[in-house]
């Protein structure tokens, strides 16, 4: 018993950390409808500024005021004015992408401003980490642990009171359902939205400064990894109850410590299980907590009709001659591109373009998944990794040709995709996004660490394929092969779009209830497309790995998955050209920036991608589609104003 308690007690501060972040998620979701994945990033920003201030000799109270009381709300204000107020009445998934953009951009911005290397042992807020205040069953309780627990309790209490017993709390809760209805109640929805973002950002800042000393050093990644635990805690509270979120977080922390206490140490499983635990808990909650289902599917805004309908895709315009002309133009462009790459383009750029097209294959999987079926996956890089490692391991251990390996990679990634999607899909889009995020982090920490899969940081080697007499180790030859594989994937996606499955998906996007009422099995269709999408990502990953002649767990980490979603969403998630454009944009920007910048400014790439989310919020159809529309309208020289009555 004493042993049990001595293992459990150290879990309390961790539990409080999870709880605090979980409460931040619930608060933001309840007041703005945004599932704020950037909450950890905001926390990191305040923690970083606090660290820097203290490191420069400021007294802690002054540093606290600057980093938490001033900076955090200002950050919230900026995000609201610059981004979130535009997505207030948009669908959940648009909001999710906006938050993803912030998750990527915020740490990058702050690391450009404060270009420090490793920040070890972050300072604690008030109580000293080295002083033991008292013992619980022989466990020493130090200052950090004590202050974390006390502050978390205080925050839960204050927020619960504010949320349920004050006017501003009531207004914030009403906002989540319909900002326009709030306006009709005579309340300035814009100010309430602003206030709630400032409040949640303040909470994030407070959490960040408090949490930092719990870790040995200060890294953005720590805060992102914490997110899954926070999501699990929020799920335990059904995304609405602050006390249950608190309890959920607490339990998660304690169970995690118990596991690491009782499991044998020094193995991948035990070191990985702690980060993996939240994933398992989250999945169990998704499966067995019936109340969640109601919460995840957001209530429709009764005034959604006031929004202008989304503009139809340019390809949907039925002008035949224009379509034929643009098809011929596109064909010529592709031919020019391929021929140039094979003749005068330098080998290093052939390599870059190969990278772009390999990425385009992975991005294509998002076009199929997000563009056609409206789902979001936050682990496409993981599926790509599964593909790469499958092909590599098969070649190394079974001497399987890489080309055959790519096919097997597709099957394996597809099967794993189906397994991930099956439980989460019953709960709808947001739950799927979160489950995939958790799955990706699980793969980062456990799955890809084993020597039989990704072999951790050291990675595995993946040879170039060969086909009979043709060897693709030459850059230009492999480029041709990638073009062919990309073309096959494009054909697959287009065939699905035109076929039965594509029409089923279109129907499901329009109305799941009505689709079911004509006999479409929603789960089957969605799992199918998720699986095919994972398979395509697997192919892309294998192609990419073979291009690089090897891959490690780091090459396919979850952060990359998030970047992928933002990049594809920004460039164009509805069309095949969007995926190819995204691949090219990603690589060209990467080359242009990383070659010419110092380490400090290399983060600029992430800032650009992150801010791409702002573009997405304003133009969900994506940059490629936007440019196409502009050109089309210039060519046809007529404002398309159809007199369709609402």
């Amino acid at each position, binding site marked *: 018993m004493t042993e049990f308690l001595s293992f459990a007690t150290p879990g309390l501060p961790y539990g409080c950390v999870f709880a605090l972040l979980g409460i931040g998620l619930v608060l933001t979701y309840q007041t703005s409808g945004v599932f704020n994945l950037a909450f950890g990033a905001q926390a990191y920003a305040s923690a970083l500024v606090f660290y820097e201030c203290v490191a420069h000799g400021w007294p802690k109270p002054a540093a606290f005021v600057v980093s938490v009381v001033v900076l955090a709300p200002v950050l919230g204000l900026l995000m609201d004015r610059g981004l979130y107020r535009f997505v207030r009445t948009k669908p959940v998934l648009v909001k999710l992408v906006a938050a993803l953009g912030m998750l990527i951009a915020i740490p990058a911005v702050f690391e450009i401003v404060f270009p420090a290397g490793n920040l070890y042992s972050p300072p604690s807020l008030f109580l000293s980490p080295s002083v033991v205040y008292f013992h619980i069953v022989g466990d020493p309780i130090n200052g950090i642990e004590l202050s974390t627990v006390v502050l978390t309790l205080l925050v839960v209490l204050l927020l619960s009171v504010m949320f349920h017993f004050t006017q501003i709390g009531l207004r914030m809760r009403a906002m989540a359902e319909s900002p326009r209805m709030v306006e009709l109640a005579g309340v300035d929805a814009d100010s309430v939205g602003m206030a709630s973002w400032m409040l949640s950002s303040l909470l994030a800042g407070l959490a960040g400064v408090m949490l930092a000393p719990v870790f040995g050093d200060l890294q953005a990644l720590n805060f992102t990894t914490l997110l899954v635990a926070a999501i699990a805690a929020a799920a335990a509270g059904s995304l609405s109850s602050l006390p249950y979120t608190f309890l959920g977080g607490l339990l998660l922390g304690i169970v995690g410590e118990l596991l690491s206490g009782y499991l044998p140490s020094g193995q991948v499983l035990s070191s990985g299980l702690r980060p993996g635990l939240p994933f398992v808990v989250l999945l169990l909650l998704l499966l067995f907590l019936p109340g969640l289902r109601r919460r995840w599917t957001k209530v429709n805004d009764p005034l959604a009709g006031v929004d202008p309908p989304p503009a139809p895709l340019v390809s949907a315009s039925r002008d035949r001659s224009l379509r034929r002309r643009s098809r011929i133009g596109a064909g010529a462009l592709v031919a020019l591109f391929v021929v140039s790459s094979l003749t005068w383009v330098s080998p290093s750029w052939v390599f870059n373009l190969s990278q772009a097209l390999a990425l385009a294959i992975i991005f294509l999987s998002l076009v199929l998944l997000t563009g056609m079926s409206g789902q979001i996956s936050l682990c496409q890089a993981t599926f790509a990794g599964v593909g790469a490692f499958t092909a590599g391991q098969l070649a190394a251990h079974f001497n399987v040709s890489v080309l055959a390996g790519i096919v097997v990679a597709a099957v394996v990634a597809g099967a794993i995709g189906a397994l991930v999607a099956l439980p989460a899909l019953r709960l709808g889009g947001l739950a799927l996004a979160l489950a995939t995020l958790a799955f990706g982090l699980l793969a980062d920490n456990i799955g890809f660490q084993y020597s039989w899969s990704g072999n951790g940081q050291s990675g595995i080697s993946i040879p170039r394929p060969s086909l009979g007499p043709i060897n693709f180790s030459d850059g230009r030859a492999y480029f041709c092969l990638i073009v062919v594989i990309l073309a096959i994937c494009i054909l697959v996606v287009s065939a699905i779009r035109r076929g039965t499955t594509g029409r089923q998906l279109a129907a499901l996007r329009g109305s799941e209830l009505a689709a079911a*009422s004509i006999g479409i099995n929603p789960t089957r269709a969605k799992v199918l497309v998720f699986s095919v999408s994972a398979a395509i990502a697997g192919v892309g990953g294998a192609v990419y790995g073979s291009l690089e002649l090897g891959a490690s767990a780091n090459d396919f980490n979850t952060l990359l998955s998030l970047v992928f979603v933002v990049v594809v969403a920004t460039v164009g998630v509805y069309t095949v050209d969007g995926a190819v454009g995204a691949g090219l944009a990603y690589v060209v920007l990467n080359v242009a920036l990383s070659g010419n910048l110092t380490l400090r400014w290399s983060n600029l790439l992430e800032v650009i991608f992150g801010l791409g989310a702002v573009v997405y919020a304003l133009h969900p159809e994506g940059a490629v589609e936007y440019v196409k529309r502009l050109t089309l309208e210039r060519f046809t020289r007529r404002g398309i104003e159809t007199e369709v009555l609402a």
Partner: protein
Amino acid sequence: MSGLLEVAGVSKRFGGVSALNDVSLEVAEAEAVGLIGPNGAGKTTLFDCVSGVTVPDRGDVFFGGRRLGRAPIYKRARLGMGRTFQRLELFAGLTVREHLEVSERERRADGRLWKDLLGRGGIRLEESERVDETLKELGLESVAGSPIEALSLGQGRLVELGRALIREPSLLLLDEPSSGLDSRETAALASVLNELRARRPISVLLVEHDLELVHAVAERVVVLDFGRVVSSGPLAAVLQEPAVQEAYLGATL
């Protein structure tokens, strides 16, 4: 008589409130039954139990002699239930024609992924012909190519009807089809329904407030109040009953 649809002793509670209390009713082959009652009487809940949106706490729904239990919506559709919705549930972004094409393909149930991948997932000639036929039946030929957003509410209801009918259901569930329609559109809907039923034997369960429409379509009505069946029979007779007048019509008659 053996009913096509049999609701046997269905009860359903939400929180502490009893929405349905031991409700039983039958719809025979080729019969049209109207389900009427005041707001909050449990009509929508009963409708949901039949169509598979919710599962009753007690009691069962039988369809063509089969116990439905917890069968999901799409399975019920495959057994021969078609439905329309009170608030239009159309497929945004698709044309009228495409709505019927999706449904027709589902009826044939041969849309496999490998067929798509071999490029054989397109619309086939015989499907196209059936779609044309249904469009004509409902008088929707002129708007066949229009995006669904450009239709009026009345046309939208006809599209929902067509989408359900092309699957050749044996039972058609209509959820307040006149809601939001003006009187002319409602009358048009009634005549479409009647022409249809004259051509083929199809059972109808109609939830409706508009007594004109109920009168025009249904042979028999069932009146619900406070989650119980309070009366059933021909509309004119039922309306004479004091209990029904009190519950449903209040002071207006």
